[in-house]
């Protein structure tokens, strides 16, 4: 049996990759994908703990996360499409209207 720590380390690596990609990539689609990556890294950790502790709570949470991620994907992609239409670009540097 694979030790729980392996899963956790993998989850941490995936999460770190997501964070780095989110910060350093400029393309909105890529940033969106890195968010999905972070979510799934967390899902992996949940499932691993659920397995290790022998409790179903973690798996239930994972289902919730997937549902929310799906909804978020629908809304987020909609916003991205609108931005792409309005600016003819997916560069996040140009989405800064909230700046003071």
């Amino acid at each position: 049996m694979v030790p729980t720590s392996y899963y956790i380390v993998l989850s941490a690596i995936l999460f770190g990759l997501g964070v780095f990609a989110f910060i350093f990539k400029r393309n909105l689609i890529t940033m969106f994908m890195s968010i999905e990556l972070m979510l799934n890294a967390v899902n992996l950790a949940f499932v691993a703990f659920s397995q290790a502790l022998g409790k179903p709570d973690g798996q239930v949470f994972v289902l919730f996360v997937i549902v929310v991620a799906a909804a978020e994907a629908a809304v987020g992609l909609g916003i991205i499409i609108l931005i792409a239409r309005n600016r003819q670009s997916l560069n996040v540097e140009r989405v800064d209207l909230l700046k003071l």
Partner: protein
Amino acid sequence: MPTTIFTPMLDYLWIIPLLPLLGSAVNGLLGSKWPNKTVTWVAIGSTGLSFLCALEAVREFFASGQVPFRKEFFTWIAAGNFRAGFDLQMDQLTVVMVLVVTGVGWLIHIYATGYMAHEGGYYRFFSYLNLFMFFMLILVLAANYVLLFVGWEGVGLCSYLLIGFYFLKKSASNAGNKAFIVTRIGDFGFMLGMLLLFRAFGTLDFQTLFDAQHAGGWPVETSGQLGTLTFACLLLFMGACGKSAQLPLYVWLPDAMEGPTPVSALIHAATMVTAGVYMVARSNVLFTRAPTAMLVVAIIGCATAFFAATIGLVQTDIKKVLAYSTISQLGYMFLACGVGVYTAGIFHLMTHAFFKALLFLAAGSVIHAVGGEQDMRSMGGLYKKIPYTFWTMLIATLAIAGIPVFAGFFSKDAILFGAFQSESGGHILYAFGLLTALLTSFYMFRLIFLTFSGKPRYDEHKVHVHESPWNMLGPLVVLAVLSVIGGWFAFPAFFKGPDYFANFLGPLFGAHKAAGGGTEAAHNLELILAGVAVVAAAIGLLVAYWLYSRQPGKADELAKSMQPAYKTLLNKYYVDELYDAAVVRPLVWLSTQVFWKAADVGAIDAAVNGIASGTTAIGDGVRHTQSGNTRSYAVWVVVGAIVILGIVFFWPSLGKPVAGMVR
């Protein structure tokens, strides 16, 4: 209540002050829309009813055998063992005061309906005047110092409002401020005196306090030992000095003549300014046990009487002469209290209320007649044109000058006799009192001769001299009658009979029995002193006659020959200028430079503005973090998460769940 006599009015004593309060409220709130006639009826009606109620209460007081009546209506302040209640009382002293206040007050209300008929703010005037009556009645009916102080401050307020009645006139509003601020200095002393009394005796109730004294708990504080009572009495007297315009604090009263003349008559001559005398007489139990304080009262009273009389000699404004005369007469009353003849002081208070109110009302009638002119140098020869005013004013002048048979003679005589007999410095006090009597007679007859005799000095084509309407003359006549007969209580005493007034007030003033003593020698002495006083008054009269009627112009020559003295008197000894330089200017400087420019602008405003501009500056710096760049926000989130994780990791105690979070 041991008495079985039915005393409805005494049981509802609060009705007497309440009626003027209602009148004031009704006139003040609704009067602006009403015609003058309605306002008049409300004002006259409420005070008149109050007068009738007072008469009934006095009748019941006599019917129940002159037992001091006292009733607690409700508790006003209760804190720890301190209680100040809305307690009213009716005793011999209150009887005199209530009758003077309501009676003279009512007459002056009637007079004012004529005097103020053509003035703006008619309803406002009567609302204030009624309010004054309310507070004055509270003052004289109160059964403890705290409630007395309520009336005390209330009459001060009304005095301020009425002096500044013509508030568009700068001098009038300034005079109002001056009166309020100067009397406030005295009130401060009064308050300290009350606190000292409470600290020493644990009560401010007259009966409890005075009974404790009578029980012998506190010895008489002779000059060697200055104790609590002496200081308390001196502080109380400081309050009286402010309210009754005595020597250091008298400066507001002459300026108070800016108010309408009925106000000068009611507040600044007949009633309010005598509140100090009333208070000292009311506290006689305390003062008697503090001879040093008594001596101070006598000296200040005597000095004020003389000092104000000298200023009165040269004043040319008819109301200013009367104002200084009022200060002088109040000095007499304090002299009486200081030498222990409280009855004479209160007697003079009563007769003074009659003849001084009459003098002011008659002066108002003169001013009315000559169209607002107050300078006596522009009057003259009014004798035939306004005969009623002339005769009533002459009667009042005879009364104040101390001519026999008239009211002032008896009371002034009693005071001088009391001063002569007092142990400490009595003869000096008497000498100054007598000299003051001479001066009084002189300046009052000077006023009469300047105003009524000789040739007219006003422009006869411009000024249409006319006698005042009946509602002004009526009160004059009534007061003239009172100025004649008001002193006759003391008539029998001159023929070795009982002194009714002194005997009536006697129970209140304990061992200090009426002047006269009763012995043959004392009686003869009193007759001699009375004779001397009459001679002094006659000298004053003759000098005034010679200078102002017989040889007009002689007075000016005399003034020229004594230029420095005349100038000093004309400028009232430069006391106003002295106060201005010594008190007002330093205070203004302190307020402007230190409190305004340094403390307020420099510290307080600077702190507030500093906080505001500092916040703006910080905000200005911080707002740059909101760049609008999504990735920089992400960095902040990550940094925050790392910091929190770091804290939890390296500082484990913070990571423990809070008690409430544990399931």
